């Protein structure tokens, strides 16, 4: 343990010696203090707070990530290159401890900078919010300075009904038996689901959303809805009537709205609208002439206050620290066997591949890598090369998503809850699993590298 802490201390001293501390302090100061003065926003208090949190935290994350990569690659590769590592390796400290000591040192530096800069962002955001009117402060408190949980409607299981329908159809039309039964079942299942998703003109649809009632007594909630029409890129508005709350309740809320499709719409609903079983009843009357489509996955969602902003913010920062720890592992792993510039190049390339998850998803969605049918946006027939690309993309994506499937900044800026479970999952997936894999490789490579052969001859 003493050896490990000695390496950590050496790494901290090296960081100061490289002047990375000074440079980083200056850059973070600019991003935290100057950036809010330059950004443009929609003019609302919520919009300003959201963009302030998003841009400052994103900049802090980017700067720390970049500096981490630089420091991780530089500290190990330079020490190997300049033969300083030989002096360390002859001490009675195993190489894995040296490697881990470097890693912990880098994490410590980053944890310090992240703590200071995120505290500054928090302070500035709260300070600016404190200067707003009490009405706007209340809006921020309800929508952004809060950790909001999410509840989805409970939909009945339609599998049995779909199976029954499948059998009935088969009896009515025996020629269906000649088709692929799995495909027919899938089609019928989609039709059954569509019955739950579409609200026809003049009709009413009801959703029942179970809410964990311990959180929401006397607290306002928010309904977040997203719907589509049959027209793509539809910018029209549609008249609907929302009715929320128990059917017989005098407190039942009614609100007429003209709403626009294809993007989520969020609006506040008064507190204490749950029925005796803790369900929020939502009814929508489609007053337009067009059928409206609310997806089962993200068509309807209730957001409710689950906790305070401060701890949510801290949890968000922990997730960011997990990312930075992972970047440090990548840099150290690369510099364990490569020279500084090559290690930096390899690490950055890996991160770029990681950021290109959208392209990989597109390959899977379109069914290949070569030209697609512009009418359908899909490949008509996938070749063997396409199949290889799809399989590889799926494999890459599943690995990348272990790290990327977390959005702490987006959650914080939209008042969503970063739950302790999410933090634990981030730690396991990002640090333990992915970080562990890279660390194992890096330590192995560090053991294999011939320190004396890597001397700088100049």
């Amino acid at each position, binding site marked *: 343990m003493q050896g490990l802490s000695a390496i950590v201390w050496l790494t901290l001293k090296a960081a100061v010696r490289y002047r990375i501390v000074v440079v980083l302090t200056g850059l973070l100061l600019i991003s935290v203090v100057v950036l809010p003065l330059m950004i443009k926003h*929609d003019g609302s208090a919520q919009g300003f707070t*959201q963009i302030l949190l998003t841009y400052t935290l994103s900049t802090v994350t980017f700067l720390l990530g970049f500096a981490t990569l630089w420091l991780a690659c530089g500290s190990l590769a330079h020490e190997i290159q300049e033969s300083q590592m030989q002096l360390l390796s002859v001490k009675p400290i195993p190489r894995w401890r040296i490697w881990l000591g470097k890693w912990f040192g880098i994490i410590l530096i980053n944890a310090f900078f992240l703590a200071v800069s995120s505290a500054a962002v928090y302070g500035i955001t709260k300070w600016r919010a404190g200067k707003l009117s009490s009405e706007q402060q209340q809006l921020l408190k309800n929508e952004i300075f809060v950790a909001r949980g999410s509840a989805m409607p409970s939909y009945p299981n339609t599998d049995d009904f779909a199976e029954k329908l499948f059998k009935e159809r088969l009896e009515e039309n025996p020629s269906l038996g000649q088709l692929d039964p799995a495909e027919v079942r899938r089609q019928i299942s989609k039709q059954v689901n569509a019955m739950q998703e579409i609200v026809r003109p003049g009709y009413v649809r009801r959703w029942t959303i179970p809410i964990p009632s311990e959180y929401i007594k006397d607290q306002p909630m928010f309904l977040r809805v997203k719907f589509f029409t049959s027209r793509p890129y539809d910018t029209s508005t549609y*008249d609907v009537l929302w009715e929320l709350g128990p059917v017989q309740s005098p407190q039942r809320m009614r609100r007429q709205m*003209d709403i*626009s499709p294809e993007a989520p719409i969020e609006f506040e609903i008064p507190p204490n609208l749950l029925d005796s079983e803790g369900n929020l009843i939502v009814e929508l009357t489609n007053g*337009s002439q067009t059928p409206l489509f609310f997806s089962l996955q993200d068509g309807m969602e209730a957001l409710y206050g689950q906790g305070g902003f401060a701890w949510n913010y801290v949890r968000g920062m922990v997730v960011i620290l997990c990312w930075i720890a992972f970047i440090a592992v990548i840099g150290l792993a690369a510099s364990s066997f490569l020279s500084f510039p090559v290690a930096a190049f390899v690490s950055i390339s890996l991160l770029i591949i990681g950021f290109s998850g959208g392209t990989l998803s597109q390959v899977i969605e379109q069914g290949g890598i070569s030209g697609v049918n512009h009418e359908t946006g899909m490949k008509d027939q996938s070749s063997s090369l396409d199949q290889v690309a799809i399989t590889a993309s799926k494999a890459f994506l599943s690995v990348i998503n272990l790290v990327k499937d977390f959005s702490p900044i987006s959650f914080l800026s939209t008042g969503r809850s970063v739950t302790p479970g999410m933090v634990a999952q981030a730690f396991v997936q990002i640090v333990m699993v992915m970080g562990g894999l890279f660390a194992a490789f890096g330590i192995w490579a560090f053991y294999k590298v011939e320190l004396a052969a890597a001397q700088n001859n100049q």
Partner: protein
Amino acid sequence: MNFFTRPYARYVLICLLVMAFICAGKMQEDMNRERHEMGLTRLQPLENAPPILAFTTVALGGFRGLISNMLWIRANQLQEDGKYFEMVQLADWITKLQPHFVSVWVNQAWNLSYNISVKFPDHADRWLWVQRGIELLRDYGLQYNPQETLIYRELAWHFQHKMGANLDDANMLYKAEWAEIWDPLLEDGVPNYALLLDPQSPEDHSKVKAIRETFKMDPLVMQQVDEEYGPFEWRLPEAHAIYWAYLGLKVSVREKDMIQLRRAIFQSMQLAFMRGRMIEFPIAVPGEPGNFSKAFEYGPNLDIVKTTNRAYEEMKAEEEKYFENIGTAHKNFLRTSIYFLYTHNRIVEAQKWYDYVRETYPDSITTSLEEYVFARVEEEFGSTSQDRLKAMLMGFLERAFIDLAMGREQKAMGGEMLARKMRQRYYDQISDSQIVRIKLPTTDEMKAELLVRLLDPEEGLNELLANQLRTRLQLPEDYDPKKAYAELIGVSLEEGMPTELDGPQVP
């Protein structure tokens, strides 16, 4: 000792360096000129740009497009996810990376004002986005492209269509907010040009500063617009649509697109004619922030027939290619004017313009004045246009009051009955979902509103007629038309008296 080691060598080299820079600069000018003459580049020097933007656009060179594409992709992605809070910043970056690409300005402004605004069910939120769209064009787009016709046209369209028309459910809020912003800069809706052009007091200076710096408008040009096409009620968006279109016609260089600006002018003038007078009730409904449905009403501005006619005539002369199109619009405007003037009891003027139409467009009206108006009533009976119908109903009711004052009770009753029937028919034709957006005041509300004007000692009927009207309506001696109107529409006089904001006065 060679040359480079001599002590004076560095000064010689510095001189050579400076000369090289001067020559390079000179050559660059020639090269740019030749590139422009040979059509090899579309890039124009960026004018009026802040240093950071000027540096960025030069330093990034061809990579500007690449970065701009990335920002577009991000903007689209965020928009799909319903995360709009970055859109203003992204639009700012995208437009500034390609500051001379007019379509980018137009597209981004349209996106903010039209596409994003309607995503918000709360009308006050929508207004924020409409303002951002206007600001993008007015404050930045025109700053870097002061001669681009399409930006002027788009800006005018925002006022004419997004704010002026009633296609957006929040249009009444837009108009109310715009009126509230402009009200302190005007005197009863009209600019005091004497003070704006020669400000005396600090208050005058601050008004001029706001008009110039916030709204990027020139009081002198406003005056020219009023003289040429007005007088206008400047709290209404139509006046601003005309202002920007007029300015565009004066300064823009793209001749082929100027017809769009001319259209913006005469279409806005038609709107101003039909509802360019404003009656304001500057009180929000208690407990319902943002609900301004009863905060103000419109009336027709019948005084601009002459200037509107002149504008059409000028445009016909200037746009030979579109002579027929403009002629058709002109003819339709005149026909509508005759009808409106007649129904507002301005028979002499109606007759004058009737004669003018018969002379200018002989085939346009072949019947007598009265026959034409009655036929038009039948045609309008089926109209579902809120503004037109309200203007018409007010005209009928005004005539009915005057008839009543003159002792022609039967005719007055007939007029009022016709107005009530027409209003009822309008409501029968629109759907329930449209009622909030394009509702009409009740007949009693319109009558009360008219009495405010007709019984006004200075601007209403003459004393004799006014007294006769009071007697025939059996109004009590202490009857206060403003108070009665306010009570009828549920407005508290303690909070603010509804005042008719004088637009151009009826002669």
